């Protein structure tokens, strides 16, 4: 259900890594309560739009923005134009879609987290590299698989015209709602990225975009939550976090 699309931004002062007070924005938009549904093939478009919009606002290096028109919706969003970013986001979306395919009709959450890489003083024990997460965006959505209709005729030569009756009206209304919700979410993203700017790390020369990672539950929701908590509690230094 796209109605559960909430974009939460956790941000806080950079100094206190995990003792900071997360400042959470939770969007509960009224339009989202209409429970517009996201179909599998729409997920890519929706996620690509949202993730790229967020990254665009955090790619503070010299970029040449790229305007992308969504195919399913009447919305244009902006990419930062970096191929690595595009590839990373696309790969993650594909993994997510695959995961969705295995867990249909289930709520899921995809997280976009920005971090800073800090190298600690190398001791003679280990050479620790830690990640300081300074912003986290949570995108909740539910994808559903519409039930496939049995074929009307036996051979594909028979009348294949689908009944353009109520079904198409439902689809169009749902899609319109989804488009409105998506637009609203994008407005909210722009608002959030502007509200809090102090926590954004300074721009380093040559660095175009802030490093980020995209995560989603690979198993059930509960373990995903535990994973996130573990990560937050046991801060960097763990080699497994470097991926």
């Amino acid at each position, binding site marked *: 259900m796209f109605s559960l699309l909430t974009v939460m931004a956790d941000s806080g002062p950079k100094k206190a890594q995990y003792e900071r007070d997360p400042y959470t924005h939770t969007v509960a938009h009224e339009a989202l309560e209409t429970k517009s549904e996201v179909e599998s093939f729409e997920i890519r478009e929706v996620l690509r739009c949202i993730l790229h919009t967020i990254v665009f606002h955090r790619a503070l290096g010299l970029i040449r923005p790229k305007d992308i028109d969504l195919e399913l919706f009447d919305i244009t969003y902006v990419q930062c134009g970096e191929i690595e970013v595009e590839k990373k986001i696309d790969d993650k979306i594909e993994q997510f879609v695959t995961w969705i395919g295995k867990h249909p009709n289930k709520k899921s959450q995809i997280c976009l987290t920005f971090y800073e890489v800090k190298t600690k003083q190398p001791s003679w024990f280990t050479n620790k590299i830690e990640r300081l997460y300074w912003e986290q965006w949570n995108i909740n959505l539910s994808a559903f698989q519409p039930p496939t209709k049995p074929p009307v005729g036996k051979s594909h030569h028979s009348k294949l015209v*689908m009944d353009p009756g109520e079904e198409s009206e439902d689809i169009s209304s749902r*899609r319109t709602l989804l488009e409105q919700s998506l637009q609203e979410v994008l407005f909210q993203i722009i608002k959030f990225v502007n509200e809090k700017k102090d926590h954004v790390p300074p721009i380093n020369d040559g660095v175009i975009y802030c490093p980020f990672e995209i995560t989603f539950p690979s198993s059930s929701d509960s373990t995903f939550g535990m994973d996130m908590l573990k990560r937050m509690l046991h801060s960097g230094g763990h080699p497994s976090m470097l991926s």
Partner: protein
Amino acid sequence: MDFPENLPSPDIGRLEQIVSHFFPKALHIVLDSRIPSLQSRGRTRDRSSGGLNVKKSDKWFNLIMGDRPAALDKLHSWHRNILDSMIIDIILIHPTDDDDDHGNVRSAETVIERWVVQYENPLIMSPQTSDPSTRYQKVYKKAIILLRSLYAQTRLLPAYRVSRQLSSSLASSRYEMVYKVSSFSDVFSPPVTETMKEFRFSPVEVPPGRLCASVTYRSDLSDFNLGAHITLPPRIITDYVGSPATDPMRFFPSPGQSFEATSFHFQGRAGRPPLTTSSASERPHSWTSGFHRPPTPNQSFSPDFHWSRTDGGDSHHQLSPPFSPSGSPSTPRGSYSPRINVRPGTAPVTIPSSATFNRYVSSNFSEPSRNPLPPFSPKSTRRSPSSQDSLPGIALYKSSRSGESPSGLINHYPGHKLTKDSKYDSGRFSGLLSSSGSPRFGFSRSPSRLSSDLEDPDCSCPFDFDDVDESVLQYRLKCQSLDRRKTSSSISQSLPIGRKSQDAAVGVLVQMLKTAPPLRQDSSTYMASSMSGVQREGSSVSGAESEFSMARSTSDALEELRNYKQLKDLLLSKSKSVGGATRVH
């Protein structure tokens, strides 16, 4: 402008620089997305080069916009005091319903967007706690984020789509989008403000003041009926169903389905999927009513092209600062020279041209001098696309019925010819059949012919749309059987029955059948007469000939008549010499 004295002087200068560069950058972002004539060149340069070829001025705020048009520099030149606010009005010129006395449609101007950028200088300075040395870096970073938001917002608001629609429309439109830059705003009339929404960007603290940006916009532009008035250019159908490149058996949903009108090939998109993935309901089919249905006004799309301004629009943009220009600064639409290859909208099908066909046919003639077949006059082969489209199936049917034609071409392998030659034809044929659930619609131009054909009990059902290949196969088998009989005779020597000439003859036959008159009730008479065999006197041929003369010029008809007579005589003589009439199905 009094910057705080406790700031080191380089910081003062840098902060002031940030503010002073912020205004033109914001102006550039807004107008670039709204006014096509002010779009930057060099936006889509090679991205791999990164910032190598970027002007220093374009690198401000780490947002490469491309070369700033000179008009924008002039616009901003009057904005010398950073304390002056910059108000950018995006105005839509649209026709009104009122007509003046002379019947001309009046135009009205409506502000659909207002962008306000200003540097607010507070009366009381707030104490500065942050480290002054890094202050300008933080300020710069925040200004970058603000401009990113501004950029993204320009793409989200409704005026963006309108501007794209207007810029893509080739025909003269009574709609136009213009801008006005000023330093003070007219107070909105109450009815206007009610329909407008406001979005305020979070300000950026630039000591001693702060940079603010906001936009007031009309969220609903449907009142202007833009879709109904904008003529959209014809689209290039790259995946037309009749093309052999597409899957002829693909299912197309009915146009009633509500697929979103998707936008394709918009400027700047790399790696966009081709038009084949477009919603099928938008794709015009040749079998829909009218040969090429123009896109409905509600569809939103834009062809794949890049606008290039052919004229210097600078002369239009002279402002008498700080007031708005009197005339429309946007370039007249007629001066655009879009680099698009637009197929005329009414050309429905790419059919084998007569030139290519003739080439193919003539190449297969082993010895043209020996060929008694009627040489194709250009006129006979140059048929209108409509008749050709509607007749392929009928051509098949006729050839299967009339086992021989006066030309004797039936003896050969028309089926082979069809499959070999125009995979296009077969593709098209089957493509027509697999149209959206109404196969017969492909022959809607001649419904009467269909009915007359199907009533014939001997019909081997070439219009059995489930068995296209089977009909061709049946036809081929019949021709083969005829051929076997014919080859046994010495006819083969005089008739163009050689390997190559067979194909040529078949091609000629196909062409003749294609140009044959429509199957009406009269045609059944023709069929019956042809069925009786070649022994029929020339009267039958002339009777048939009268049919042909309807569709062609008299000279062509006469010429054909002579050729038919020759062939008929030849066949007669040969059949007599063989010693039996050939059975004809």
